């Protein structure tokens, strides 16, 4: 059938109409049917929730001096993909590797960032010697040619200062000419000059690397950091070069496309040139950050007390922690405020609120830190601030264009400790000297490792922990940190005797089971009595005088306390320990309030007492326990117990300044305490601690303790616990307890631990401010 031209035009029109129809239907499906989906994607494109990091609270000492605080700092990051594509050196190295791979004789040649024969200078040199004809589209495979063209363009553009488009045009022309020109000669700039610029860039990179290494070395030296230093810039480049060539991936993404920090705490003057000359340092970026700065030396006991932080993504304690934290920190309607009604429809609003919560949790993981040890951990709820969040609209370059709403950021609260930094330093110095002094006496390395020293200083009136050196960590690896004592190795020794004495005297007054003093055997030294077929010995021969509690305490007569312990029995000994907080009493017991479960901020071991359990007898005989064996306690607990003698009440210990803490009054044993005080004064003036002149001069009252702890009883624990009998100008009354674990046989408590306490008090006396604050008036030399 012959069709007319009009019919044919009609057919063309129908085809056109069909085209219009198809397009309109597609547009309707896209813009009307799926509008909500695309609207949501449009919102996702430009709406985001941006976290505002919170500043963690500052930790201060007793006088308000900063111990730990957040400080703004600068970190340097590396985006390696950008570095190898846009930085002269990165492009040269990778370009040279790609070029070498084309030559069968040089396959496997790998250039690097080191100072060897195949370093960056060689890479630039060899790459510039590449024939330009290789960049012709038909010579090499497209992806190889494209890679080479990009790297060569980067090198030439950066080295010459010309625009990339101009360089690329010159390369294309040279490639098309195919006249043997090398890429280093396509520009009107001599190759020598290009190489000189490249050499300068290499020098800049090396200089930056050296500067960062030196800064890190100084910081580690200042803080006493152990372990290997981070690899630095060139190390990071080497690592990423290998990852790039191996096409390593992390969660599906090329590792080289993940931005990494290679230096932090960088001073502004070092970081600024990278920011100012950003085009020369492609791939290297400067970012603001926050770092936790500690003014206390690494490795010290105080540093251990202060503790450490960890990024929250590695320190979430349990899976419900987030829910609990958000419930406690955020207002109940925070999502409604952050994504207000009326902005979008309800369904999208619910979706955005879900995104906001997910983003908040993610940003917490990425930006927040949590204390994992020490004060940072124990006061984490106080120190940790609250992340803020901004609901913003941004453009394609992620620049904020509009702020919809925000959740206010809240900084963490400061924590002021009871620790006096100067007292703490004295205590640490004294414990270190004591430990080294005793350690040197051992020949065997194993014995040397077991020797540890610790010192605790409290304010007897308030329970404030003023200093605590050597024993803050409960860890099997405490020996790695100088002066740190581990959990405890067995016995507190004779420092326990005053508590038994109080119970004996109280039992005498109240008629509880006891052995009357008049019925005690006089002390004969060796084998004064036998128990369980074993002789019980005393270091001295005190005769009948040893039956006087004051003399028995002052001279530390074992015979007295063996017999007294037997008289008191298990119940009496338990009462003695419980009254002074060394044994947890049953609920309803009059001593239930004496036990302090823990001291917030200090990871001190709790006392452990060997005693009968049900039908099972105690492993250690009662008489031995009465003189301090099989009772493990830290200097903290012993010092707390001795505070009773100083002030007449048992304080609750604490590390946070300004706390009101309960005390346990000892009103029922006033007379007994006074008798024991006489004994403690006698111990220092005429008894087992009489050789310590400083203690006498300062009027310290206290008790020595020596417990044999070695397998063959060849080693001792040496203790001294005591107190000043008056307050200093600051209102604090010091009670001190020192211990040196694992001293040589024949080294007694007074000689080792008493000397430790004396050294500490000498230091206090030598410091004008400390003397005024803590020593009673007239305690100067």
């Amino acid at each position, binding site marked *: 059938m*012959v069709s*007319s*031209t*009009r019919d*044919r*035009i*009609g*057919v*063309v*029109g129908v*085809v*056109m*109409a069909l*085209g*219009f129809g*198809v*397009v*309109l239907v*597609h*547009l*309707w499906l*896209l*813009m*009307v049917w*799926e*509008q909500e*989906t*695309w*609207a949501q*994607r*449009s919102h996702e*494109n*430009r709406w985001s929730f941006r976290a505002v990091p919170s500043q963690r609270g500052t930790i201060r000492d007793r006088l308000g001096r900063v111990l730990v605080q957040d400080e703004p700092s600068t970190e340097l990051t590396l985006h390696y993909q950008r570095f190898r594509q846009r930085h002269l050196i990165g492009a040269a190295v990778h370009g040279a590797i790609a070029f070498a791979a084309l030559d069968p004789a040089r396959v496997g040649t790998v250039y690097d960032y080191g100072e060897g024969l195949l370093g960056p200078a060689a890479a630039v040199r060899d790459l510039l010697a590449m024939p330009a004809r290789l960049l012709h589209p038909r010579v090499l495979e*497209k*992806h190889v040619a*494209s890679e080479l063209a990009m790297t060569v363009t980067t090198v030439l553009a950066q080295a010459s200062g010309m625009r990339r*488009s101009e360089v*690329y*045009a010159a390369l*294309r022309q040279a490639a098309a000419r195919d006249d043997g020109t090398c890429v280093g000669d396509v520009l009107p700039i001599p190759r020598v000059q290009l190489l000189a610029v490249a050499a300068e860039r290499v020098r800049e990179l090396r200089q930056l690397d050296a500067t960062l290494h030196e800064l890190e070395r100084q910081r580690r030296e200042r803080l006493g950091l152990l372990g290997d230093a981070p690899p630095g810039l060139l190390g990071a480049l080497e690592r990423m070069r290998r990852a790039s060539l191996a096409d390593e991936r992390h*969660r*599906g*993404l090329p590792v080289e496309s993940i931005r990494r920090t290679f230096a932090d705490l960088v001073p502004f003057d070092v970081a600024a040139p990278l920011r100012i000359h950003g085009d020369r340092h492609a791939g290297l970026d400067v970012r603001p950050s926050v770092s936790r700065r500690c003014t206390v030396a690494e490795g010290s006991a105080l540093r251990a007390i202060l503790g450490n932080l960890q990024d929250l993504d590695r320190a979430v304690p349990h899976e419900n922690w987030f829910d609990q934290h958000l419930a406690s920190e955020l207002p109940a309607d925070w999502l409604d405020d952050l994504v207000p009604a009326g902005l979008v429809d309800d369904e999208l609003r619910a979706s955005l609120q879900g995104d906001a919560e997910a983003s908040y949790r993610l940003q917490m993981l990425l930006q927040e830190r949590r204390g994992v040890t020490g004060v940072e951990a124990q006061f984490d709820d106080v120190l940790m601030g609250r992340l803020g969040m901004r609901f913003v*609209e*941004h*453009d*394609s*370059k992620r620049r904020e*264009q509009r702020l919809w709403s925000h959740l206010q950021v809240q900084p963490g609260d400061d924590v002021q400790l009871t620790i006096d930094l100067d007292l703490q330093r004295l205590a640490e110095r004294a414990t270190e000297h004591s430990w080294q002094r005793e350690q040197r006496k051992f020949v065997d390395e194993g014995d040397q490792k077991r020797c540890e020293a610790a010192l605790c200083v409290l304010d007897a009136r308030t329970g404030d922990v003023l200093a605590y050196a050597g024993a803050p960590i409960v860890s099997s690896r405490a020996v790695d940190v100088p002066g740190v004592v581990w959990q405890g190795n067995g016995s507190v020794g004779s420092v326990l005797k005053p508590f038994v004495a109080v119970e004996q005297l109280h039992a005498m007054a109240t008629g509880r089971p006891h052995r009357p003093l008049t019925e005690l055997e006089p002390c004969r030294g060796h084998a004064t009595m036998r128990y369980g077929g074993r002789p019980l010995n005393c270091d001295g021969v005190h005769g009948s005088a040893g039956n006087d509690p004051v003399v028995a305490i002052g001279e530390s007569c074992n015979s007295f306390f063996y017999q007294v312990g037997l008289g008191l029995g298990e119940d009496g000994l338990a009462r003695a320990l419980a009254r002074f907080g060394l044994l947890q009493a049953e609920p309803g017991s009059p001593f239930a309030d004496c036990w302090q479960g823990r001291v917030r901020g200090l990871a001190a071991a709790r006392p452990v007492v060997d005693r009968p359990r049900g039908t099972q007898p105690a492993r250690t005989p009662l008489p031995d326990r009465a003189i301090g064996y099989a009772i493990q306690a830290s200097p903290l607990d012993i010092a707390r117990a001795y505070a009773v003698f100083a002030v007449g009440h048992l304080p609750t210990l604490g590390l946070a300044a300004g706390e009101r803490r309960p005390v346990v009054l000892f009103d029922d044993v006033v007379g007994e305490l006074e008798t024991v005080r006489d004994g403690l004064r006698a111990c220092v003036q005429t008894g087992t601690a009489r050789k310590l002149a400083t203690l006498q001069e300062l009027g310290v009252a206290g008790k020595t303790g020596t417990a044999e702890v070695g397998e063959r009883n060849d080693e001792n624990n040496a203790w001294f616990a005591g107190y000043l009998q008056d307050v200093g100008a600051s209102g604090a009354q010091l009670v001190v307890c020192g211990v040196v674990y694992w001293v040589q046989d024949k080294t007694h408590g007074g000689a080792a631990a008493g000397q430790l306490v004396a050294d500490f008090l000498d230091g206090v006396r030598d410091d004008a401010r400390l003397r005024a604050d803590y020593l009673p008036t007239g305690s100067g030399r």
Partner: protein
Amino acid sequence: MSEWAHGLPRRRLQVLANVDGRLVLAIAALCLCGLVFVGSATMDDVQFQNQQSRQALFVACGFGLGFFLLLPHYVHVVRGAWLFYAGVVLALLGLPFFAPEINGARRWYALPGFSIQPSEFAKLAVVVALAAQLRFLDRSRSLDTLLRPMVTAAVPALLIMRQPDLGSSLVFWPVLLAMCYTAGARGRTILAVLAVGLVVAAFAYVELLHGYQKERIAVWLQHWSWHQGNLHEPAVQELLNGKAFQPWQSLIAMGAGGWTGFGIGQGPQNRYDFLPYRSEDYVFAVVGEEAGWLGCVLMLGLVAVIVFGLLAMAARTRERFGRLCCVGVAAWIGAQSLIHVAVCGWLVPSTGLPMPLLSYGGSSTLAMLLGLALCLNIGARREPILAADGFH
């Protein structure tokens, strides 16, 4: 006395009275809309903020030149068709030697204050040349009769494809097919030409297309499998932030527009610079985002009025050259518009093709307005049949 003694002959001016006013209005409306959307697309961009004023200048020049193109009889165009065609081909041949390389392509001659893109004028030249060639076509011939028209279209198409400018080269095919069919080629012949075109396309894909062009096709094929469940996978995210960024942002812009859009100048994808080249290659995405589906219908409606107006004009025109020119220009404007819209909606792989009279572009606007002016010239004259017409 010469009729010129009284200025322009009354007969010439009378032609103006016969110009299809509705078509002129539709063209003017489309140009005006183009100015509005180019202005919206560039108002926040310092680099391109003079595009609206320049586009207005191009439109004014186009109308002005078009006015003067209406006055002489279009027979002069017939006489100059091959000269025009040869000039354009020479201009295309000279690009590798005289045109600067911009973004890896040589498409424009840089002149003081402006640039000329010969490929846009090549479309008009091919329409005119094909009309001159096909007006004597005997429809009883088979495929070999169409070989010369195919070569006429293929020469500039291939030269344009090697610039590289794949999008512009694609427009020549629907123009060729529409004009050949209108000229009387058999349906089977047209199918054969289509088959040849497919073979050429396959050959071009393997041998001629650049890597980035193949990647666009590959990504386009992949995107049909994307859905909300797999959009956040790393591999997909890598594409969305890389090779698929532009078309994906265009989809977001259009899809979010809904029925009525965000309002002129209020589209977030536009304002926040998520759409690169949105005043040229993706202007319809701006239309979709800011005027919604109804706005798209309006724009396409204007284009349809022009296309079908030209086809109606072709049907009314008995003279073969004029008829074929109108069909050619209609196919040109229709095909280019539909391809541009399809690209914006990612219905086809992305390619840089401006929307006629809507996108920013001096050469494109001038060439199109000249083509439309030629058609208006044709439509304003009812000429007796100049050549034997074997058709009804």
